């Protein structure tokens, strides 16, 4: 069982040597190549995924930036519109004030004119009536001079301001 046989040792060395050569050339090499290829593919996939992730993050940042810019622009537009609206409002109000003021002035002018006209008419009628009344009371004809003097005296007692206020 323990006999030393160099022939067997030589067979072992040759057999193992050939096996090692075959394994190295036809088995371990191709197998390792497949494993390396897989490792490379996985690495590439990871790099690709990282690249995609980076791009997605960039796109998201860009999108957020666009949203932020759009929001800012929208706010500016609204602000500008509000300002324009306010300006227009102020302008319209101003114009309305001026117009109203003008209308009031016109109305006042007209009132003043109408009042004066009315007073003049009243003045004439009062004069006529006064002449008539005075003539009847005095039993005589009043001259034109008397007449005018009496009218003026009567008119002096009339309160025109109250007449004007009543006309308004």
């Amino acid at each position, binding site marked *: 069982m323990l006999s030393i046989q160099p022939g067997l040792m030589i067979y*072992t*060395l040759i057999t193992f040597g050939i*096996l090692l050569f075959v394994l190295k050339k036809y088995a371990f090499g191709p197998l390792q190549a497949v494993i390396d290829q897989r490792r490379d593919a996985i690495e590439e996939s990871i790099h690709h995924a990282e690249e995609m992730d980076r791009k997605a993050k960039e796109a998201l940042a860009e999108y957020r930036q666009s949203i932020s810019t759009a929001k800012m622009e929208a706010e500016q537009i609204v602000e500008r519109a509000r300002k324009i609206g306010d300006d227009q409002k102020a302008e319209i109000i101003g114009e309305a004030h001026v117009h109203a003021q003008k209308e009031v002035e016109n109305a006042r002018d007209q009132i003043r004119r109408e009042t004066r006209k009315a007073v003049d008419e009243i003045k004439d009628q009062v004069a006529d009536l006064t002449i008539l009344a005075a003539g009847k009371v005095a039993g005589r004809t009043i001259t034109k001079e008397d007449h005018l003097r009496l009218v003026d005296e009567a008119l002096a007692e009339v309160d025109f301001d109250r007449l004007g206020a009543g006309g308004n």
Partner: protein
Amino acid sequence: MSILNPADEFTDALKPVDIAGHHLQFKLGPVDMSINKVVLYLFLGAAITALVFILISKVARVLPTRKQAGFEAIYEYVRDVLVGAVMPAEAAAAWFPYIAGLFFFILISNIIGLIPLPFNLASGFHNIPEFKTYAATANINVTIALAAITFVATHVSGIRANGAIGYFKGWMPSTAPPVLKQVLFVLHGISELFRLVSLSVRLFANLVAGHLVLLVFYAMILMIQSVALAILIVPLEASVVAVSLFEIFVAGIQAYIFAILSAVYIGGAIHQEH
């Protein structure tokens, strides 16, 4: 009956075999180069190892199947744990084919040794071949030759990495007193030789012991002639099954030990500790 002496199995294995009427006995000068059962088992072990790996490497795809993934797990375990963990990185890459080749060759040879095969064509009863178990690694010449490769590889790689003087200087601890250095050198030399012996004898002895235990159980079963003792056959056969299962474990562990010790020896010679 030769089967009654289990040790005969090992001596018979050294006899030249007859294949197709040819008695395969050769001599190369004084060296007997006959083809015997050991040589056939060597060829068979090497052929199966090569075929298994070539087949796997041929069908290997980048997207692995479950079987391929399982095999690759063993391959990567050998590469990263058996070799990568005990050798410097550069040496691991260079020596991986050798260590892996050793591991898988010894493993497959050990396992083939557990399968009964009809190699005893001439000795069969009425020319019916006898199915018997034998392992190439259960022969001391085979294990010595394998251990010798590791032995030579250890010292050659040690000298290559450190230079002859540096390598042999590494056999003596630099912290040792000068008077002891020579003694330590001799002791280290002896330990190196015993590594060769222990590496070869460990594998051979474990395989022989396992086969002997199994053969003893077979012999005991065949020796039972009386009906009264027939009741013993069941526990004996159960023992054969148990020992066979244990031998599968031994086949793996011995291949692992041989390969990892080879890696440790070669790695230690390249990266010497002072």
